[in-house]
């Protein structure tokens, strides 16, 4: 035993302490650099939204809120904001109903078509926005539906539904099927069981999914651009502003949107985290901590849980299979 262990020990000793510290330092700085790289753009936009100079450059001129007040004095901008809110609310409502239904359906399906259906439903989430946008545009054009509120909502629904579906599916995986069976045994019909047992079980996930979907809808530009008619949503309106010349108002608008998004994501994450913790006391969830579960759900929403599957159906051997 000792003879086998020796080369291993020797190799370990060769890395002296200072070298290890050096490596740790370099790795730490590199990681910090990535985080800065990821967050710098947002922080800089936020900083410039309170910079009084009209030119976006350092050094910082002086602190002001005038871009925010200009933003709220801008009538088309306000219209765009309310239109965006309306679109988001409608799209999220439809998606919540459809997403919940599809999640329950997929959860119960045992046949071979399940993977295909899941992948097809998820495909709008991983397809580039432009492809989704133009394909829906020609679709509606063929159906003689002009671009407008309905088309924008349909576009948003097509990618928010799979999002909500995956968040709910993630939660359904950890629910105990015997609860529903017990409810049926006690004589409750399918509707009553759904209302009193199934729905409360996935309620938190559903709400979290809706919050995530809402931020997605408020931010979406690639699909919306093709489907918006004469009335632009907020991102489309801002995009137009940016193309025809720039006002620092845009920074203020972006900062508000980003702040709103972060608040909604935070709320969604917190909901999932807390409910995951409560749930764990009831259902034993081997090996997965609450935070991990929340992250997995958020993440699933982001891409991986989803992404693993559609790509797999595209015959890429399952990276995200477990």
């Amino acid at each position, binding site marked *: 035993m000792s003879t086998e262990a020796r080369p291993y020990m020797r190799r370990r000793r060769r890395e002296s302490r200072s070298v290890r510290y050096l490596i740790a330092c370099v790795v730490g700085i590199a990681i910090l650099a990535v985080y800065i790289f990821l967050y710098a753009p947002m922080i800089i936009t936020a900083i410039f939204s309170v910079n009084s100079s009209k030119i976006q450059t350092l050094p910082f001129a002086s602190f002001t809120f005038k871009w925010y007040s200009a933003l709220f004095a801008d009538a088309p901008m306000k219209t765009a904001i309310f239109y965006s809110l309306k679109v988001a609310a409608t799209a999220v409502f439809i998606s919540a109903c459809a997403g919940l239904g599809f999640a329950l*359906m997929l959860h119960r399906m045992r046949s071979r078509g399940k993977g295909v259906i899941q992948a097809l439903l998820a495909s709008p989430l991983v397809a580039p926005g432009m492809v989704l946008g133009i394909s829906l545009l020609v679709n509606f054009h063929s159906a003689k539906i002009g671009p407008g509120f309905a088309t924008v909502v349909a576009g948003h629904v097509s990618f928010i539904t799979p999002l909500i579906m995956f968040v709910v599916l993630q939660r359904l995986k950890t629910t105990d099927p015997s609860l529903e069976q017990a409810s049926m045994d006690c004589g409750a019909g399918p509707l009553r069981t759904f209302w009193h047992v199934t729905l409360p079980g996935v309620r938190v996930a559903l709400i979290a999914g809706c919050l995530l979907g809402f931020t997605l809808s408020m931010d979406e530009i690639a699909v919306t651009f093709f489907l918006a008619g004469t009335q632009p949503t907020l991102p489309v309106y801002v995009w137009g502003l940016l193309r025809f010349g720039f006002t620092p108002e845009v920074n203020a608008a972006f900062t508000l949107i980003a702040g709103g998004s972060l608040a909604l994501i935070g709320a969604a994450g917190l909901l999932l985290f807390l409910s995951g913790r409560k749930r764990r006391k009831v259902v034993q969830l081997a090996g997965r901590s609450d935070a991990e579960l929340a992250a997995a759900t958020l993440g699933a929403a982001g891409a991986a849980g989803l992404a693993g599957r559609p790509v797999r159906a595209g015959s890429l051997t399952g990276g995200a299979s477990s």
Partner: protein
Amino acid sequence: MAASAARYLEPVAALPRRIPRPLKRFLLVSPALVWIVCLILLPNAFLISYSLWKNELGTILHVWNVHNYTELFSSQVFITLLKRTLLIAVVSTTCATLIAYPLAYVVVTRFGRYKTLAALLIIVPLWVSYLMRVFAWKIILGENGVLNGLLKSIGLIEKPSTALLYSTTTVIVTLTYVAIPYVFLASYTSLDRVPKHYYEASSDCGASAWRTFRHVVWPLTRPGVAVGFAIGFVLTFGDYVTPQMVGGLSGTMLGSIVLQSFGTADNWPQGAAIGVTIICTGLIVLALLSLFTRLEAEIE
């Protein structure tokens, strides 16, 4: 009493017994099928058929031909753009993978109980307005931008450099930035699935950290990385917001002409043909990736 006894074995979503089983199953799935047909299959079918129709001064004639494709592939401009778009997408996704995978590895192996927080912090930018994140790069890299101001105040450059914005490199940097969270997410989930005792077993057998990575961790996580790469590639390949925003003339990508065809140029069939080309390229890359990343081992 008998009725409730008969009911108890049925699944919750069961419809009354009278309906035969296969039909019942079909009825359960049918809303999803309608959905898929209306929002996914039909749009794509129409996209393909539009690309095969003829355009005459903005009106679409329903004459089937492949003229749009032959015109595209004989046009030097299109070929140049296609090559450039491929290059930009591959380079930026590769950069993103080279940054995100090691990062995910360190986060999973070294961050202990904080790894979820660290991972979330990387994913969160995904949820913040895409337009905002791309636009911010314009502020950073512009002629009077933050980076130029910084370099000038340090004394590295005399005059503000104009080379930073509106070039292929700018687009690559921005798209790398966009792709990092996606690749990270895929890498992280696959790395996180490798059980801790695999590392321990490998190191007990005398393997160094590098050998453990090379022979244990990498083979297990390679498919996850491939998935991340595929998503990153598809998203960057079909993007039009970034090239429009920071690309300028030398950073134009395929997405920009699709935008033109559906907008000012009013040539829908041509735009549809480019769209179909983009979809096909994405599928080809997926197929190639799946060829090269056969799973060698699986985690139980």
